[in-house]
């Protein structure tokens, strides 16, 4: 057992650091100047990352990937996070759809879509959830009827992250209403500019508008945009959901949040002492650090499984569940540490860390819902890991 990087990996890290030094500064200068539209600036940053060779590390070269080693992938995610570089805007395309297409897409689809996912030319959103189908995703109602070489889609999707800026959407639709619920679902790729799509932004609990609802009225999608077999979409959706739930990157952003709390507690005074001088704050921060380390080493164990080509499967739910709980503990600890000033909004006198603690807190609350709720993760662990009997008819 060892966690050492090879000399080649270390050289690779050095090159990346030097590269970030130049390119990240440039991007930050452009963003700060504020005369470029932020979405455009984010797309440009993704393009820069892609051209530098720091995206699609595990993807095949023929579709714009790097075929890099797993340890290089770890190096990249560590360095990007340490440097404070923004994540690529098309994360949904890169980490959720991309691997699904590589596994299940046709050759034409891979060539057509994958390179533009990576360079940010086409931004993607995930059209899975519906008003009546969340945890019970397989009960979705959005209908697609075959009409010549097209599908005609009618229905509604909701909670679609980045739906208002996306160029494309990967969509689950019902193509056979008479079959069992999992056997009548198909997986389609939909251009968001197709006539008949209406997108309405929804404000989230934290005040931001990062997700939306989408209405489909006789939307015509070419048959060639079907991924996999007709009525074979559920299996593909499952692999999409597994992709969504694994990975190391979560730990590093959790580590950054925890460092933020530590800095706050050494700089903020509560009464005659610094916040960190209180025994209960020390105990709380220590507990968070312990849990963060646990998650980090769990990530290394998962990574070793990947290196040995063992798929994550239901065990990915362990990390997803634990990480979202930890994020929420960190979010709440921010309020505990800040004390009376926790309630003060950003841009007002005495506000703390420019409202960042509050954003961190609200942000954390979405993690136990999006990508499958914590209760669903508990069901999966109980059934698929421990082998307990199912809790409900399905």
């Amino acid at each position: 057992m060892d966690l050492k990087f090879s000399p080649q990996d270390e050289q690779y890290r050095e090159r990346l650091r030097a590269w970030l030094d130049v390119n990240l500064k440039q991007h930050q200068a452009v963003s700060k100047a504020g005369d470029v539209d932020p979405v455009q600036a984010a797309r440009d940053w993704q393009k820069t990352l892609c051209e530098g060779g720091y995206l699609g590390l595990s993807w095949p070269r023929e579709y714009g990937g790097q075929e890099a080693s797993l340890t290089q992938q770890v190096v990249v995610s560590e360095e990007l996070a340490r440097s404070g570089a923004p994540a690529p805007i098309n994360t949904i395309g890169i980490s959720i759809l991309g691997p699904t297409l590589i596994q299940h897409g046709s050759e034409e689809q891979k060539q057509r879509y994958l390179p533009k996912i990576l360079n940010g030319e086409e931004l993607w959103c995930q059209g899975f959830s519906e008003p009546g189908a969340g945890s019970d995703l397989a009960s979705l109602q959005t209908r697609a009827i075959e009409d010549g070489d097209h599908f005609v889609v009618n229905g509604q999707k909701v909670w679609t992250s980045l739906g208002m800026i996306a160029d494309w959407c990967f969509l689950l639709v019902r193509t056979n209403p008479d079959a069992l619920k999992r056997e009548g679902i198909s997986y389609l790729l939909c251009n968001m500019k197709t006539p008949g799509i209406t997108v309405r932004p929804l404000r989230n609990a934290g005040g931001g508008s990062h997700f939306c609802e989408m209405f489909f009225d006789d939307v015509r999608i070419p048959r060639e945009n079907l991924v996999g077999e007709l009525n074979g979409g559920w299996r593909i959706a499952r692999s999409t959901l597994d992709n969504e739930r694994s990975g190391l990157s979560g730990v590093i952003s959790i580590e950054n949040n925890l460092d933020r709390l530590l800095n706050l507690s050494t700089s903020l005074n509560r009464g005659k002492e610094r916040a960190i001088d209180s025994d209960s704050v020390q105990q709380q921060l220590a507990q968070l650090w312990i849990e963060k380390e646990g998650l980090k080493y769990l990530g290394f164990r998962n990574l070793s499984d990947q290196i040995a080509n063992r798929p994550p499967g239901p065990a990915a739910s362990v990390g997803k569940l634990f990480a979202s709980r930890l994020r929420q503990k960190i979010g709440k600890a921010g309020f505990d540490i800040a004390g009376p000033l926790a309630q003060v909004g950003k841009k007002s006198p005495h506000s703390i860390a420019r409202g960042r603690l509050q954003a961190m807190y609200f942000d954390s609350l979405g993690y136990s819902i999006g990508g499958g709720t914590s209760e669903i993760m508990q069901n999966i662990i109980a059934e698929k890991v421990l082998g307990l009997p199912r809790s409900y008819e399905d």
Partner: protein
Amino acid sequence: MHFELSEEQNAIYDLVVGFMADKWSGDNRRQGLDSYPCQIPGELLREIADLGFYGISLDEKSGGGGEPLLTSALIAEAAGGSLFPSIMNTTLAAAKALDLCDADSNWLAKVISGQQTVAIAIEEPNGCWGLDSIELTPQMDGQGGYLSGSKILVSDGDFAQVFLVAALLPDGPAFIRVNANAEGVEINSMRRLDGQSIVELEMKDVRFEQDDVLGDGATLNQVYDIWTLLIAADLLGNAQSVLRMTTDYAKERQQFARPIGSFQAVAHRLADIQVDVEIGRSLLYGACLALEEESDEATALVSAAKAWMNDLGVKAAETGLQLHGGIGYTWELDIHLHLRQARSNAVTLGDSKYHRARVASHLMSPEY
């Protein structure tokens, strides 16, 4: 980079689990509760020594198995999960301690071959844990000195022929070798909650010579960390066993014409323990590796593992008791044995609060 058990490690773990399933059971521990302390047949102890467990993580040139520390932790985990007594951890730690202190090789050989039991005496009757709270100070003369004072909570002191007594010497902390039968030594059994051997060691003008002094502050810290980690591993194994037992029961036991494991109030509690066990296992591996590589974070990671496992061990056993219903509250079922062992280990070599404080001092250190 790889972060998984080797084939040997998996094999050793399975060997210990299988061995214990054959030779040891909760009944042995129940007996220990009625006739303190829990006894282990000499035959069985010899077999264990012959399997080469005690020295497994020592260098081959010290007569050991050349395995990393984690292999010892896996043995501690498997033994703890099988309710095997603390003598396993005590001897694994003592062998490491003698090796780190460069003790005489014949002596070390006796310990790893099971011919002699060495107990480590650290805690004193002051309500605190850790090397910082040691007050025992010997009276020194030219060739050695005299020890007077008491140590408590000394694991396996009922069986030990020799004690490594942590004391404050003029140059800092060190171990002093004290024979159980030396003049001025009095050993009083203390009843541990789980029937295992702990003793009070009373010393009155006990003579020691210069070559009975072993190690220094640094080695004592290492020994403390290693032993702490072994007990953390014991707690992990304990939690893992309770989880397995309770999951099996939840699949079998029927109420309202369905298995109780199909109720989410039951299933989710077990799922949560599964998550906590996986995190605990990850912390154990991480801490072992850090100690092995002498990382700056080693002590903080050891404390992380112990704090986490203290809470996990107790939570798993209490949950297991509850989810077994009435049977869970009986003397016959092994659950209370697991709970007793977890509760005792959770306050041995530092409770969660103590270890979180050690983590906090790491977070507040200028190097962090």
